[in-house]
C-alpha cells in the first residue's frame, strides 16, 4: 500500500487534483457553500496548518546543525551554544504564556533592540558603499550618478520644501525608470513561477515531490 502512495504517478495525480480543487473555485465565481468551494477551503486550511509546522522543523534543523558545530568545536561554536540556549529558554517561556511573563519580556527587552540594531546598522555599510562605489568612470556611470543625485536630493524631505522644482523630477524618475524596472522584475518573477508550476503539473519538475533531479 505504501509503495502505491510513494509512486511518482500517484503523487503527481494528487498534486494535480489538489491544484484543480484550489484553482477552479479561485477563478470561477463558485458560491461559497458549493461543495467544491467548501472542499477547497478545507484543503487550503490543512495546507496552511501543515506548512506552519515547518517552524518545528526549522528548530530541529538548527539544533542538529548547532550540535554538529559544538561537537567539532568549529569556528563560532560558542554562538551556536548561545543560540540553542536562547531557543530552549524561549520554548520554556512560551509555555508560561505569550502575552505576559518572561516571553513577553524577552520579546520587548532583547529581540526588539537586537532586531532594530541589526537593521539600522546597515546604514553605515550602505553609505560607505555608496560613497566609494559611485564614480563617474564613463558616460553611463555619469548618467547614473546624476540620476542618483536627483533621487537622493528628492528623497531628503528638506530639499523639496526649499527647492520645489526637484519634486517633479524625482517623481518622474520614480514613475518611469524605476517603475519600468519594477514591472520587469515582477513580470519575470511571475512568468517564471507560472512556467515552473506548469512544468510541475506536467511531471517535468519532480524534485518538488522528492524524486531527485531529472534532466531533459
Amino acid at each position, binding site marked *: 500500500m505504501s509503495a502505491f502512495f510513494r509512486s511518482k504517478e500517484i503523487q503527481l495525480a494528487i498534486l494535480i487534483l489538489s491544484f484543480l480543487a*484550489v484553482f477552479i*473555485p479561485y477563478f470561477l465565481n463558485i458560491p*461559497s457553500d458549493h461543495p467544491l468551494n467548501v472542499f*477547497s*477551503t*478545507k484543503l*487550503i*486550511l490543512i*495546507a*496552511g496548518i501543515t*506548512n*506552519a509546522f515547518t*517552524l518545528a522543523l526549522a528548530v530541529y534543523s538548527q539544533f542538529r546543525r548547532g550540535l554538529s558545530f559544538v561537537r567539532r568545536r568549529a569556528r563560532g561554536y560558542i554562538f551556536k551554544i548561545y543560540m540553542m540556549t536562547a531557543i530552549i529558554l524561549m520554548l520554556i517561556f512560551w509555555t508560561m504564556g*505569550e*502575552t505576559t511573563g518572561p516571553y*513577553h519580556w524577552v*520579546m*520587548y527587552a532583547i*529581540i*526588539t533592540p537586537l*532586531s*532594530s540594531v*541589526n*537593521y*539600522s546598522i546597515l*546604514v*553605515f555599510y550602505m*553609505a*560607505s558603499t*555608496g*560613497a*566609494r562605489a*559611485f*564614480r*563617474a*568612470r564613463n558616460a553611463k556611470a555619469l548618467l547614473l*550618478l546624476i540620476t*542618483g*543625485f536627483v533621487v*537622493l*536630493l528628492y*528623497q*531628503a*524631505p*528638506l530639499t*523639496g*520644501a*526649499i527647492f*520645489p522644482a526637484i*519634486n517633479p523630477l524625482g*517623481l518622474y524618475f*520614480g*514613475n518611469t525608470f*524605476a*517603475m519600468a*524596472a*519594477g*514591472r520587469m*522584475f*515582477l513580470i519575470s518573477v511571475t512568468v517564471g513561477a507560472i512556467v515552473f508550476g506548469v512544468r510541475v503539473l506536467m511531471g517535468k519538475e519532480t524534485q518538488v515531490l522528492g524524486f531527485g533531479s531529472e534532466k531533459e
Partner: protein
Amino acid sequence: MSEKKGLMRFLAEYDRRIIYLLIFVVVIGPLLSPFILPISVSPDTQAYYNVIDKLGPNDIVMVVFDTEFSGFMELQSGILASMRVMIEKGAKMVIAVSHPEATGIPELVLNQLADVISRKQYTYGKDYVYLGYIFPNEAAVAATAQDFHGAVRQDYYGKSIEGTLLDKVKDWSSWSLISDYTTGIQSQALINHYGLRGTPMIVNCIGVMVATQKPYVSSGIYKALLQSMRGGAELEYLIGVPGPGLTAMNSFTLGHYVLIIFIVLGNIGYFGYTRYKQKPTGG
C-alpha cells in the same frame, strides 16, 4: 603641488570609518535635540491620506503588520499616523501579524495611541480586535480570504472572536480595506487572495520595495502607496500630529546630504588622483 596631490589622494582613499563617524553624528545629533525642518508632501502620500480620510464607522479595516521588528522601525511613523486617522474616523480595525517577531508590535502601537483611543472611547471587541500571528504562510492568507471563521476562532489573548465586530466578517468581500505595513513577507499573498478579488488595499512599504510596489498602484490593486518612513513623516505632517517620522526626518535629510557630499568628494579624488595614477605614462 604635493599638498594638492596629498589632498586628492586623501579624497580618493579616505578611511571608511570617517563616513561611519559622520553618519553617526548626523543621525544621532538631531535625534538628541529634535527640531522640525519643513518637508514637502508627495502626491502618493496625499492619495494615501485621501483613502483613509474617507473611512467611517461602518468600515472594517484589516490592519496587517507584515514586518519583523527591524522593519517596524522604518514603518512605525506610517502605522501610528494611519491608525490614528482610522480611530479618529471611527473605522473598525482587525489587527493581524505575519511574523512571530511582530506579535509585540500592536501593543506598542496601541499604547502610543492611548490618548485617541481613550478620547474616542474606542473599545476592544466592539471597535478593534487583535488576532496575533495568523498569517504564517500564503495558505493561511488564502484560508482567511475564503472562510474567515473557518480559519480563525480566537484572538491573540485566546478569547473567542464570537460576539466581536468579526461577526460581520465572512470572507474577502467583507473587508472595506486592507491596510498592509510590509517588508514583503505576505504582501504578495494578500494581493493574490484579497487584492485581486477586489478587496481595496493600501500599503506602507519599506524604501527598497517602492519600485516593485508602484506598479500595483498604477494597475489599481493598491488604492495608494505610502513610501517608507518618509511617507509616514509626510502623513504625520498632513494630520498635524508630529511623531517618530517627523523627528527622524532631520537625520534622514542630513544623512542624505552627507552621502551626496561624500560621493562628490570621492569623485574629485577619483579624477584628481586615482584616474591620474591609472593613466599609462607612455615612452
